């Protein structure tokens, strides 16, 4: 399959989700506003990556910078969605820790020209923790609304699916490369997971309503 075509589809999905996010921006809760900005930044970063890759034949420096920024945005999203004070403090601390880890990673483990797998894997583990914490919070304060009509549920389940699946994908990729197996199916698998991830984010942005979420969190 033509990778350029896949990339165009990918960017189109991001663009559509960004448009949805900014059209509904005023109606979104704080967490989802952050998410809308994150998607816009993802669109910009992915575009820069493509251009950078064409010019320098290696877009990994952009990937390194983006990995930290993406983590910060996701953390900020969960910062607004989670209500526990200690968890909020831990989230802020984790953003600083991730930045330090990235510096250490670039200096000692994975150079700017290499794929930032360490940061991405660490991020995915933290996303799983965030997701489980939000599930716990949802169970402690269940909303009246049907679970399937809640933006929070779709977003959170999406993050859990994405983070765990991508973690598995990285692990398998490493195994495949080590054993000189054809890693192309895994690359396609990662693409499909990414597509699903951004489409479901778009759906959750369309479903989100500031008023409902405010009512939910005020109970907590």
């Amino acid at each position, binding site marked *: 399959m033509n990778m350029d075509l896949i990339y165009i589809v990918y960017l189109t999905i991001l663009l559509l989700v960004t448009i949805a996010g900014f059209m509904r921006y005023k109606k979104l809760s704080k967490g989802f506003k952050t998410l809308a900005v994150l998607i816009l930044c993802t669109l910009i970063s992915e575009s820069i990556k493509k251009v950078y890759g064409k010019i320098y034949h290696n877009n990994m420096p952009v990937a390194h910078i983006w990995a930290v920024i993406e983590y910060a945005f996701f953390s900020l999203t969960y910062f607004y969605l989670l209500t526990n004070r200690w968890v909020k403090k831990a989230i802020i601390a984790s953003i600083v820790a991730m930045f330090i880890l990235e510096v250490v990673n670039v200096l000692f483990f994975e150079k700017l020209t290499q794929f930032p797998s360490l940061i991405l894997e660490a991020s995915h583990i933290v996303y799983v923790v965030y997701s489980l914490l939000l*599930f716990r919070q*949802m*169970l402690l304060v*269940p*909303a*009246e609304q049907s*679970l399937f009509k809640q933006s929070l549920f779709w977003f959170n*389940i999406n993050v*859990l*699916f994405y983070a*765990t*699946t991508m973690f*598995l994908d990285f692990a*398998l990729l490493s*195994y495949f490369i*080590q*054993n*000189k*197996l054809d890693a192309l199916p895994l690359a396609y698998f990662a693409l499909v997971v990414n597509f699903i991830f951004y489409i479901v984010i778009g759906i959750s942005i369309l479903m989100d309503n500031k008023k409902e979420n405010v009512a939910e969190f005020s109970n907590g």
Partner: protein
Amino acid sequence: MGNVAPNASELYVVIFSTTVFFVFLTGFIIYFILLYQKRQGENKIERDAMQANFRQEFLKARLEMQEQTFAHVSRELHDNVNQVLSFVKLNLAMISNVDDEQRLKINENRDLIAQAITDLRDLSKSLSFDYITKQGLVKAIETEVNKLNKSGIINASILVEGDTYRLGEQSELVLFRILQEAINNAIKHSGASHLKINLHYSPEMFNLTVDDDGVGFLPNSLDHSTGSGLINIENRATVIGAAATINSSPGNGCSVKVTLNLLQQRIYIDGNHPDRVS
């Protein structure tokens, strides 16, 4: 790092691990959904119970206020208006130096005032909490029936079945107020000529039924004023843990039935709702 080709067992482990991963992930999601729905159900039950409790307390407070107003009006009628009327009647009796025609007029007026005093005393009694609780439900209803028959507005009859027993001060008071509301509705809206009141006492159950032979109505087509009277009946019944059912259709009169399950009511009374209004 050695580039060793994977053997079949290694690949199986990879496939198995991947399968286990997805099964676990799906299992977790299903478990979460089920648990969340269970919590939602529990929360809904809790919320409904709280709302019902609040509604009950609100109704009780409203009835308490209403009883206080009734008691105040009853006292005023008895201590003030009745006294003034008695004084007027006495003054009329003391008028002398009048001719026969004037004496006849004075006596007519004295009779009218005496009638007004009796009516007001009856009204005062029917409003008085103490009078109703002292008399008991059956006696109080009998008095009400006699008053109605004397007034000639409507012909009322009462039938008591079973061995009577006391239902508790609050229950009897509320049942009496329900009866008054039903009578009031029948007189105001139904155009009925006859009213049948039935009290049925059985060891586990008490039933109060008020049937009229009026024009009847479609329960869904009530205007606000008529509807609120019937809603009042239902609300009052709820306060004592009874159930009120109102049956009517055009041309077939109206039947108001209040059922008090005594076993349930005992639990109810022993719970958070003491059997006392004021």
